């Protein structure tokens, strides 16, 4: 891809999200989301392999369906309430439709099935953009919709935590694991949205930081499978020592950062007399912790079969700056 086209697409990605952030009219917000979708499509098909085109097609179908539903909901809302303002979503039907459309956009259960297959077909960099940047615009809209009752968000949240944990249980492909991890984390964020939106932002920002770090670690070690993860110690030893911290942080273990949003969310749910929901969320996130621990174990606590030449890359590659000075 020429640098000009590449930079056009990247700038379009930025413009789309910024447009959605800056808009109060549903049309403009929808337009921003569409620009985002259309800008990432060529980035996804850069490699022209059939798996990449399959992933792109599935992504496009899911996003187009969600966009159409969102536009329909926004138009219906304007019909019922007379207002195109994002903050004026008073009709329960349109509010539900909008929520479901945005849930499909970001990959919340039960509308999450496109996510692992799409992530599996992409490069790690495009997967990173999909998991982080592409979530910003829909999340901004979800944040602004005034919930009538917390039930829908709680149901979506709990289902996502279960689906994200259970789905990633037996995966060996790292990109699919990251997709399920994303679904589970989005579940946590959406669970608390109707009670304490700032907590959702805290959870989202910590999720962005952790996911970015993890994706970048995998990009540096060029690993996409749990087996190649186990030989990453020979490529960049320091990164291999630090990546489990990121993984356990994603799993929500104290005293790492990832524990903070989970703790605060559980505390807020308990304050709202939803102790059962809090217990269920905590229990189901143990599934996710299981596969994070498995990745950490594979990376640091195993010595897989390797040939002598395969144990030396860290000596020969001076371009990685993660070695201590």
């Amino acid at each position, binding site marked *: 891809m020429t640098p000009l086209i590449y930079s056009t697409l990247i700038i379009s990605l930025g413009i789309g999200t910024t447009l959605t952030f800056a808009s109060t009219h549903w049309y403009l917000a929808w337009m921003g989301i569409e620009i985002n979708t259309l800008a990432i499509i060529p980035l996804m098909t850069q490699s022209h392999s*059939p798996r990449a085109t*399959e992933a792109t097609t599935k992504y496009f179908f899911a996003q187009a369906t969600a966009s159409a539903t969102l536009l329909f909901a926004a138009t219906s809302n304007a019909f019922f309430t007379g207002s195109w303002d994002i903050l004026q979503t008073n009709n329960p039907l349109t509010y539900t439709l909008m929520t479901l459309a945005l849930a499909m956009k970001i990959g919340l259960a039960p509308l999450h099935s496109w996510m692992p297959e799409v992530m599996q077909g992409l490069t790690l960099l495009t997967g990173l953009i999909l998991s982080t940047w592409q979530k910003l615009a829909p999340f901004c809209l979800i944040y602004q919709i005034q919930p009538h009752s917390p039930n829908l968000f709680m149901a979506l949240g709990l289902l996502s935590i279960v689906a994200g944990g259970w789905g990633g249980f037996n995966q060996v492909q790292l990109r699919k694991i990251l997709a399920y991890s994303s679904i589970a984390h989005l579940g946590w964020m959406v669970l608390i949205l109707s009670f304490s939106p700032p907590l959702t932002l805290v959870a989202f920002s910590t999720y962005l930081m952790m996911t970015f770090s993890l994706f970048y670690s995998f990009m540096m070690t060029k690993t996409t*499978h*749990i087996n190649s993860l186990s030989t990453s110690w020979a490529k960049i030893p320091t990164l291999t020592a630090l990546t489990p911290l990121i993984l356990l942080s994603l799993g929500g273990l104290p005293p790492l950062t990832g524990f903070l949003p989970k703790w605060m969310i559980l505390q807020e749910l308990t304050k709202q007399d939803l102790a059962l929901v809090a217990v269920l969320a905590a229990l189901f996130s143990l599934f996710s912790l299981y596969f994070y621990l498995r990745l950490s174990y594979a990376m640091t606590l195993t010595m897989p*079969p390797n040939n002598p030449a395969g144990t030396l890359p860290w000596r020969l590659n001076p371009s990685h700056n993660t070695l201590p000075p």
Partner: protein
Amino acid sequence: RLIQMSLPNISRVPASRLLRSVRDLRWLLRSIAPLAVPRRALTQMGYRRPGQPREDKPPWWRVKFDLSKGLKGMKRHFQLLKEEFFAEFVGPMGKPIIEHMLEQNQVVWEFRGPHSLQEWTISCDREIGGKSEIYLKIGKNNETCLLYGTLCSDPPKDGETRYSGYCTMRAKQPLASFDRKKYHDWSSFNTLHLRIRGDGRPWMINIIAETYYTHQKDDMYSYFLYTRGGPYWQDVKIPFSKFFLAHRGRVQDDQHRLWLDKINAIGFTLGDKADGPFQLEIDFIGVCKDYAHTEDFAYEKYKRNPEV
């Protein structure tokens, strides 16, 4: 319902008073179609292998309604579903994770009895009217399989086909419960390992990966298998990076590496234009991980429309 009348068609249109009695428009339209277009009877649905008797029964007559067979089928499928469910508690694809991480070799197909032949399909150009023959049987001591037959390059005399002479053996797609497609996941491995004994003929190994679009259904990744003949067994190790993409036998310009996480089947094809008998004995087909092989893809990918 107006039918366009043209001079060549008028002679085939029934008399007008009969038109009123025609209820099925399809029948009428078919009768005025040009006769050169080969027509199929309504009952000839699907593919019929040459040599099998024609069945002129309507589709509902061909299905054998048998309650005991249905119940056995349901029991088998539910049993498979239960096994799949509990296998997930063991680990990915029913194996513990430590096995996934440590395994360097995996035998995918081996021939240890007549039941192994159920996983394979054989075919030759007899299906298009050629004269080749192919047979598959279990070798001596139930240890190997023997693929043998006769290759004949004489094209069928149908006025259309110009070339002929191929014989092939292909694995069937693995199926999960309720006949869902299952895939081989060879992403932990990077080399195909075969133990074969041939007669010196060059074969083509084809790997069929899962695709998405219908126009990709004939995509396969091929490489050559040169057999050396003789009584000695041959261990062939072909890295997956060597496989190139072909569609219906034509090598594609836009090449990419074979993705190993969803493999449907493997096949062997003989089409070396050397008429005569052939034999190929296969002990096992497996995959292995060669840590010394770090190549991603063996061929350069040329851009067909380079940007200026």
